[in-house]
């Protein structure tokens, strides 16, 4: 079967810039690996880092977040908040036992189809180098998260 060695990669993209950039890549027929599935968000500022954690713990091997370039946010400043939250979150990943390379955030504008192609290709390669995410049983994962969050 073709594509069997696909890994599970989930993308959270803001509607105004990066979703449009991914569309632009499509319109330009810029070939990309097929692993990624995109969830449309209004703004990168809508992304709760816990979504990323939940996604990784639920079976994804990688998560990609992309928003508007800094200063270019459709809602003025959503991506600044996103940057702060996601940067802190990325540093926290090792404590959750997750390789920080499984999560990246970046900025792609609606006109940057080629950039989107590069981002997807590079990130997919990166996840394939890391391989499938090691799985605990669901119970273990919960315990691990709770233990780390001190709860």
């Amino acid at each position, binding site marked *: 079967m073709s594509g069997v060695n696909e890994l599970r990669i989930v993308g959270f993209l803001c509607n105004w810039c990066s979703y*449009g950039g991914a569309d632009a890549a499509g319109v330009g027929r810029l070939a990309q690996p097929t692993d990624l599935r995109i969830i449309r968000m209004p703004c990168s500022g809508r992304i709760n880092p816990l979504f990323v954690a939940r996604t990784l713990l639920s079976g994804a091997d990688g998560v990609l977040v992309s928003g508007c370039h800094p200063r270019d946010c459709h809602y003025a400043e*959503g991506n600044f908040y996103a940057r702060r939250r996601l940067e802190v979150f990325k540093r926290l990943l090792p404590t959750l036992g997750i390789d920080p390379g499984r999560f990246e955030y970046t900025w792609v504008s609606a006109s940057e189809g080629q950039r989107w192609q590069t981002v997807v290709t590079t990130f997919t390669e990166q996840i394939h180098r890391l391989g499938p995410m090691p799985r605990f049983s669901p119970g273990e994962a919960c315990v691990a998260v709770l233990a780390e969050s001190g709860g």
Partner: protein
Amino acid sequence: MKIGVFICHCGSNIAGTVDTAQVARTALEFPDVAFATDTMYACSEPGQEAIVQAIKDHGLDGVVVSSCTPLMHEPTFRRTVERAGLNRFMFEMANIREHVSWIGKDTEANTRKAAELTRMAVEKLRRNMPLFAKQFEVNKRVLVVGGGVAGIQAALDCADGGREVVLVERESTIGGKMAKLDKTFPTVDCSSCVLGPKMVDVAQHPKITVHALSEIEDVKGFVGNFEIAIRRKAAYVDWAKCTGCGLCMEKCPSRKSLDRFNEGVGTTTAINIPFPQAIPKKAVIDPAFCLKLTKDKCGVCAKICPTQAIDFKQQEALFTEQVGAVIAATGYDLFDISKYGEYGAGKLPDVITGLQYERLLSASGPTGGHVQRPSDGREPKTVVFVQCVGSRDKSVDRPYCSGFCCMYTAKQVILTRDHIPDSTSYVFYMDIRAPGKMYDEFTRRAMEEYGARYVRGRVAMIYPKGDKYVVRGADTLMGTQVEVEADLVVLAAGAEASQGAGKLAEKLRISYDKYGFFLESHPKLRPVETNTAGVYLAGSCQGPKDIPASVAQGSAAAAKVLALFSKDKLENDPMIAAVDIRRCVGCGKCIQVCPFKAIKEVDFRGEPKAEVIETVCQGCGLCTATCPQGAIQLAHFTDNQILAEVNALCLA
């Protein structure tokens, strides 16, 4: 819940690499899916009818269409389900074209991916709620930024449509580049005869207010209710008193000031009215050259001004305007030709830009319309034109075509012959771009009737030899080297985004491309709209454009604004935040982060609670990601919906 799923072929666009029938069969297994089918063109009339019919036949209460990007047809399908009696938010879309069929050729992988994206949409739809728009007042004034021909056209059309217009122009006069042109292609009619009356119309129109010498400082609010802060630079002349008589210009002793209007060809006085037809026709002092402002000497203008308009202490002013829509028409600027060191541009006095040449050709220019070399005032007999200087050249990061240079060079060739009948013109070009009506005929006339020698090839270098300039290049058609001894060299400097365009875009919250040109909402179907409601584009701020195209866009943007203002109330997008007051602990974090000040604190039985102002909320969801209690949720993008999408992709 009963969900219907429609998998679009989009002709072969999707069906070519996705087994759409298979996806439909798979979809039937998803929870709550009562009906699933593939369809040839979901957006076509029969395609939409089939959706309406299925809703009725199967009693559906939600629909998923898997097809192209929702940025394109989400509104279309929302109307479709509404026609069948559903709430338009009981609809979801899966993007299986731009994000699937167009980016991969593996049918099996694509089919699986399309099915998963469809499942994701179904899971989201299962948690959708009907949403209803709220109405709000719209301020029916429009702000036009940039008073070039595009902005002028937009302003006049809006004003003629009965709306109040505020026109903000950075320079001391409107007119833009067109005001600097001598004649215009392809008719060779006089630029100021065409533009001048329009400028006068702007000045005299009771519904238009012009703020010249001004720029946008800040933009607050949203469609229907923008608050624009405007900064007006100091003119050092009280414009309420200045009559534009020009006496000050006659007497000003500081005559070596940079002549911006004439593109630096020649100099002008420190106090200046850029050209006789300027609108507004008011004097401005250039503080860099004024003897009073630099050395506290002179002050002649203040002494002779008949209306005592001179005010050396004038400060810049900051004020606000309330409008309901904005048209950006900030035009373009010229590529800095000095980046081509091999052409000696910026160093050799007789190597100039096309726009400088327009000023030399113009009867109102610094030479009174006599073509003279800047170096010695001699009439040139051999003029060489070089195309694509800062266009179509990756080495200077300008890979795009500036569009109008081929045409204006043909025009300048014709005018050169008219001015100097015994002159010869050479044009070094890459390709001739003349796609408009009568354009190709026009460039042919330049060659055939006016005997211009067109040489296909790039110029390698330009260097002085005696009082002439050697232009050395290749003739790629003949396969030979060419050297021409020129008296004057005119470089067709490419168009680039107007200075500060990126900053303005950030204030207006619109996107721009890597070169600084503003991004339209859709390149074909929404060419003058942006992704920010209430903000429109006109003219070459969106990409290089000639006058006919700029004017057409000015009118198009005005039509969009007039359509927006034809309603007395606008409807908000109901995908906004709502507070669950039982969960809200009144911490106020959402109030702090909201970029639109759309959340206020209210008192509920003695306790502070957050409340969303529904017509102000723009639906970004920043608050939802901030609230420590999960008490404020963005409708249509709730935590539950997003996690359901995640689960559909990861756990299924």
